[in-house]
């Protein structure tokens, strides 16, 4: 099993407040890693550290994050983010752009301007995000008029269009109805063939359905990290067991 990202002794801070404490974790390639843990334990912060988005909200880190052997904490954040795409909790298409332009935004503003190539990538990305059939006749319409689930898949397509290697998802389905949630979960299953995926979720069933590995964070510390099956059936620690059984948090 290949390691895509090796996180070593990661500490994250907002000002003086330490919110991640010595987290070390190897994230395997072409698998889905679920991050679980009670609210405020640092899941989103961990995810953001992986593509330097913590900087945008005023966070700092110590430690190393090796992506294919290169320490991304020392690289240009703009280039890092093109390799690790991010999906947010609330679907957030660009309100002033058409569906097509939304998907093409990353390409356009990163200097790719070849029209034909862009159109191809947009179509491919929308197909990958399982949205193409629903929007192929309305590519010039605003993305805002889509349903919440469609919007989230549009956001996934937008991220896929920049051809990242890793997709980071922060509770991507928590604002969606059950049917849309199922669609997103099916999508994750498809996407892991080509991408490494890290997903934060509060939903235990979802974690056990979509992920191959699960990491349990508590108050900024990595408590347990193992194959998802193991975490949900016979975890090493009682604390983990209590959490996945819904006995606290």
């Amino acid at each position, binding site marked *: 099993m290949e390691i895509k990202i090796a996180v070593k002794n990661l500490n994250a801070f907002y000002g003086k407040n330490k919110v991640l404490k010595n987290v070390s974790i190897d994230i395997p390639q072409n698998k889905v890693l679920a991050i679980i843990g009670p609210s405020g334990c640092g899941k989103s912060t961990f995810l953001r550290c992986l593509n330097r988005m913590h900087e945008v909200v005023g966070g700092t880190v110590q430690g190393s994050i090796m992506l294919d052997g290169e320490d991304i904490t020392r690289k240009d954040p703009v*280039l890092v*983010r093109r390799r690790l795409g991010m999906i947010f909790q609330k679907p957030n298409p660009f309100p002033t752009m058409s569906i097509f332009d939304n998907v093409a935004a990353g390409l356009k503003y990163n200097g790719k301007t070849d029209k034909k190539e862009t159109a191809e990538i947009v179509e491919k990305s929308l197909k990958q995000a399982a949205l193409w059939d629903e929007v192929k006749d309305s590519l010039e319409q605003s993305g805002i008029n889509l349903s919440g689930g469609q919007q989230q898949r549009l956001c996934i397509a937008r991220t896929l269009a920049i051809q990242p290697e890793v997709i980071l998802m922060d509770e991507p389905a928590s604002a969606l109805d059950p049917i849309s949630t199922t669609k997103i979960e099916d999508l994750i299953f498809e996407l892991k063939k080509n991408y490494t995926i890290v997903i934060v979720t509060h939903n235990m069933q979802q974690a056990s359905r979509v992920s191959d590995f699960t990491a349990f964070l508590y108050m900024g510390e990595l408590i347990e990290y193992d194959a998802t099956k193991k975490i949900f059936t016979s975890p090493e620690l009682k604390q983990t067991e209590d959490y996945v059984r819904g006995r606290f948090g």
Partner: protein
Amino acid sequence: MENGAMKSNLYLYKKKIINLIMLSLSVLAAVISIIPLIFIIYYTVSKGISHLNIDFFIEMPKPVGEPGGGMANAIVGTLIMLGIGGSIGIPVGMSAGIYLSEFGKNKFGNVVRFFADVLSGVPSIVVGVVVYSLVVIPMKQFSALAGGIALGIIMIPTITRTTDEMIKIVPQSLRETALSLGIPKWKTTVSIVLKTAWKGIATGILLALSRAAGETAPLLFTALGNRFWSTSIGQPIASLTVYIYDYAKAPFEDWNNQAWTAALVLIILISILSLLFKIITRSRYNIKQ
């Protein structure tokens, strides 16, 4: 039981009455606020319409006593100075606004914000005097350029503050999304944030332009006025507002009437400007929210 029902009925009744009173009050307030506007438009149209014809737009002013004539030079003069003012006020104001909203959360930003507020409170005649001593005296010449600069300075604070405010209300999540796509920060600001805030900023620019178009005092010290045709930015130039000022206080009834027509033309000009802005900033989509 019965008592309770009656109580809640009474409560609903009270709520309805309060709603009605509040509604009437706000309708009344709205009506009062548009009454002055209606009077202004009514008077300007009824007094100015008699001289409003094609000649007014293409003819030059006639000497006293000769009937007819127009204010072609003043219309062009006003447009030229608005052009100069806009090409100073819009870029400077917008850049300052972008700086304030994206990078201005520090002492220097607060200082800039404070000065913008002070500048917007400075009477326009003072701006005129300052431009007089900084531009007119060194050039030894009243000029369209000096007038345009004065209007530009007057436009800056309005544009700065609206740009600042409009960019600030663009949701942070939009910026984060753009950055997460590997779009550099400056491109995020220019292409995503500014595009989203553009409608509000355009309204601010329009407001600044309209107010500048109506300025008289600063032009008396800078552009002065001109009875003749001139499009040179180095020469004194006519403007609608200065004509209104001169013609309205002149002892000739014909000139007084022409002053009303000039006022009407100014209002029409500003309306056309608003319309143009509405068309430019019209959203490509009908977004239901």
